[in-house]
């Protein structure tokens, strides 16, 4: 337990629409340091909701999420921002890179809210871009990059500053098979160097290429390939 980076404890999420939507109905699992976990499920299974809760972008209706030992329910909105700045990295399906900026500055912005100086941020960003194989595109505007290259830059941005956990939301969703395979390979490589990564995907094939698979359906965990580690 002490080695767990993320704990999701009996989490429910209800959206107050009419009728109310129960996106998650009591989900529990934990991610240990160095894990590479995929959360797979069809559309509407609650994957995105789970990612938002794990990423502290939203709060559960009930239950608890603990990131790096900090229980989300005890933190203010400002504290959650701090938690995200220092402990969580995100990779999005739409990349969410900022236009009009170079690849280097996009990655450096991954540390923008950590209080590091611009020079420090750029130095760390360069190292990270080299790690993801984008060392030759440092000063390139992101609009000039291919989809695969953009996702590499986005991955470097999530990695920069070595957060406790990286949450990737359909990272291959906007990529062709070749680029998709390359990103999966990159994720595996980063995990080998010590990064803790949770990948959300609807693609069962990709999900099953990872060491641990958590299946989600109708807001409940259907199966967990490492159920021993789950807190239930």
């Amino acid at each position, binding site marked *: 337990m002490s080695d767990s980076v993320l704990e999701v404890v009996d989490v429910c999420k209800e959206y107050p629409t009419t009728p109310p939507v129960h996106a998650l109905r009591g989900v529990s699992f934990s991610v240990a340091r160095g894990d590479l976990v995929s959360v797979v499920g069809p559309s509407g299974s609650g994957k995105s909701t789970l990612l938002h809760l794990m990423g502290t972008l*939203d709060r559960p209706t009930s239950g608890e999420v603990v990131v790096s030992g900090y229980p989300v329910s005890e933190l203010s909105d400002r504290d959650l*921002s701090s938690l995200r*700045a220092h402990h969580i990295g995100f990779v999005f399906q739409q990349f*969410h890179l900022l236009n009009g900026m170079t690849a280097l500055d996009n990655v450096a912005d991954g540390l*923008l809210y950590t209080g590091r*100086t*611009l020079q420090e941020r750029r130095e760390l960003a360069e190292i990270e871009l080299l790690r993801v194989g984008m060392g030759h595109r440092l000063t390139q505007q992101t609009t000039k990059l291919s989809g695969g290259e953009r996702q590499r830059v986005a991955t470097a941005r999530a990695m920069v500053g070595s957060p406790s956990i990286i949450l990737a939301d359909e990272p291959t969703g906007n990529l062709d098979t070749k680029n998709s395979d390359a990103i999966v390979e990159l994720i595996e490589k980063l995990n080998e160097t010590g990064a803790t990564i949770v990948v959300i995907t609807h693609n069962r094939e990709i999900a099953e290429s990872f060491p641990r698979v958590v299946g989600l359906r109708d807001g409940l965990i259907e199966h967990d390939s490492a159920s021993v580690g789950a807190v239930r």
Partner: protein
Amino acid sequence: MTSTLERSELHVSDMARTATIGMRTRRLRTVLSALGIMIGIAAMVGVLGLSESSKSELLAQLERLGTNLLTVEAGGGIGAGTGTLPDEASAMISRIGPVESTSTISAVQANVYKNDLVDEGQTAGITVQAVDYSLLDSLAGTVADGQWIDSATGSYPTVVLGSVAAERLGIDGVLGTQQVWLGDQWFTVIGVLDTFELAPDLDRAALISLEAADVYLDHDNEPTRVLVRVDPGQIDQVGTVLAATANPEFPEEVEVARPTDALEAQEAADDTLTALFLGLGAVALLVGGVGIANVMVISVLERRGEIGLRRALGATRRNIAGQFLGEALLLAVIGGVGGVILGVAATALYASIEGWEILVPSIAVIGGLVAALLIGGIAGLYPAIRASRLSPTEALHTT
């Protein structure tokens, strides 16, 4: 859990950098939205600068001309017509204590022509006035070319022309040999004057000495106007007794005026225009502010994805609000600085064309910049708050 959470932190310089992202990626929109503020500020700075410059010009003009001149003129009463003042009017006025000097003008019933062949009806609207030698000093007038009449030249048929009269008679320089046909006599032109700021009607006159009028035109020299220079401290007191002194029998037929009042009245009219233009500038500024607010609201809608990303990267609500407020302020400051430069340039250009001293009141410059900042702040506040209240999950789901 015992470890304390490191705070999310954004340096001021980084905050400023994030505030420029919008304008770096949307340059045309930045220029257009700053333009509204720029026009407003330029109008206000320009109007204040021009009014200040022209005011200083007026003060200099009044200083030069002296405000202590009063004119006493016949006419004004019922059935007065083209009356004259009593012969002794000038002497009587001189006896008033605070009067420093007097100068007499007597309108001559004669016309002046370029030569004796010109048709009698073509007078070109030029009057003939018999005047004291002291007239030029009394009116603070200046000679453009040639010389003024003095006791030596005044006893001969000589004439000095007002600026407009000279132009109408086709005389642009004094050679000493030109003559004009004045009251069936040849008069030699010995001088041409500059414009009289205190008596524009004399610009259209041919001026001869009282002596010449008497000798050559058999004019009775009854004064029609007396120019009075008064002790500056007692102008009002002298003004009240002048009519009765000049014509004790019919004081109501005497008009007393102060020529510099006309200049001041003109300036007062300019003040009204200044207020009008300032009002227009304020409206332009307001419209500019609405433009910025509009652009910022659109910008927040367009950049929801970016807002979501920044929240995910650890930005606090305050960081997001600061970024958008900073952007609005920056737009306004660009407009404000541009407006001040434009306003000062316009003032400098116009004032130098008019030959005025270039004066831009610092209150206009500072006020312009403060107004721009204030408007930018107000315009950016609502969009900034809106951006900061956006839920990160919602924001991320917009592409």
